[in-house]
């Protein structure tokens, strides 16, 4: 009887040790949510193109300003800085495409969206759209450059993201926003 009880204690102890060992081993594995949400990053430079899940993106211009004027003439100002990214996007299969612009500064602060933010309009698969995206950042963010992220669709989590390291941001006094439209022959050059 004592021998059987001893065996039970031994089995119970071994199970506890196995569970603790398993838990310790699992701590070395990445968290499942982190893996699921990790974006697929694609570096892109000014004037170059990158293939994303939803289509092809080409960066045309990056500028900084404190004043933008929207397509109907309304003036929008900020105490910070508007970073304006102009790009061409050619959707692959349907009307899905980039919907946001995210900026990360060297302190790890994340900025997303801006008042007066503008979309690309209705995407037409196979036909390049000329888009303008804005993000409003803090004044001290742009000194040492910014990391700009353009997700393939709505959110960067678990999706393709074009990553642009913007070292220099040419400043303009005022930026005139254009509504999203299909790219003209001149814009395609």
């Amino acid at each position: 009887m004592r021998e059987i009880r001893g065996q039970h204690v031994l089995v119970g102890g071994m199970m506890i040790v196995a569970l603790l060992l398993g838990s310790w081993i699992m701590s070395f594995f990445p968290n499942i949510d982190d893996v699921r949400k990790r974006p697929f990053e694609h570096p892109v430079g000014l004037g170059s193109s990158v293939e994303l899940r939803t289509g092809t993106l080409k960066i045309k211009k990056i500028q900084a300003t404190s004043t933008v004027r929207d397509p109907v003439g309304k003036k929008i100002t900020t105490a910070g800085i508007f970073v304006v990214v102009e790009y061409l996007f050619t959707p692959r299969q349907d009307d899905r495409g980039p919907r946001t612009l995210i900026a990360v500064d060297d302190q790890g602060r994340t900025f997303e969206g801006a008042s007066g933010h503008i979309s690309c309009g209705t995407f037409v698969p196979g036909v390049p759209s000329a888009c303008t995206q804005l993000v409003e950042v803090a004044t001290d963010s742009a000194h040492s450059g910014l990391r700009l992220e353009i997700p393939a669709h709505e959110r960067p989590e678990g999706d393709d993201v074009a990553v642009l390291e913007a070292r220099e941001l040419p400043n303009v006094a005022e930026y005139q926003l254009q509504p999203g439209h299909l790219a003209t022959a001149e814009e395609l050059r």
Partner: protein
Amino acid sequence: MSWWRLNRWGLIALIPALAFMLLSSSARVWLLYTNDRFINPRPPSNYVQSLPLGDSATVIVLNVALKSVEDVTGSKELSVPEGARAWLVRVDFEAPVESEIGACQVALHDQHDREFRPSPEHVLKRKIYISTSCDPSPPKDAPLGWKRPAKWTKGWLFVLPADAEPGWLELGWAPPDYIHLPLK
């Protein structure tokens, strides 16, 4: 007595248990990811669609027929960018006057099954609002409480790349059913 023999009933019960587990997780995938997409094509005649209306629901019965598919790239009212073509697709609708035809989603698919949404804003020279839904637009002088007719025609303007040919039209109100209307 061997371990297999000792646990035979448990092992037998495990098979349907695993099957039920697989089915229930599949149902969850179905409900979460597929049931909110237009995945069930239906013919254009006598199309029945149930629509949620707040706490109640309504059922619409529609007959849809293709009227015309026209390449309107050269139209004076349009400015079509290089490498693209504009297509006007017109469709005849028929539905009882008392049926509420809510907003629908319209998409044109080409020969490569690429999906295009109506995009008149890209090519119309005059910046005017054009409904991209299925219900008829009321006439300019429509009185208050105007009711749509039992038969009407609706047209949508699509912009396609020059190499794309219109293949079929998707008209959907609430997933997963939609009208599949061939354009040839």
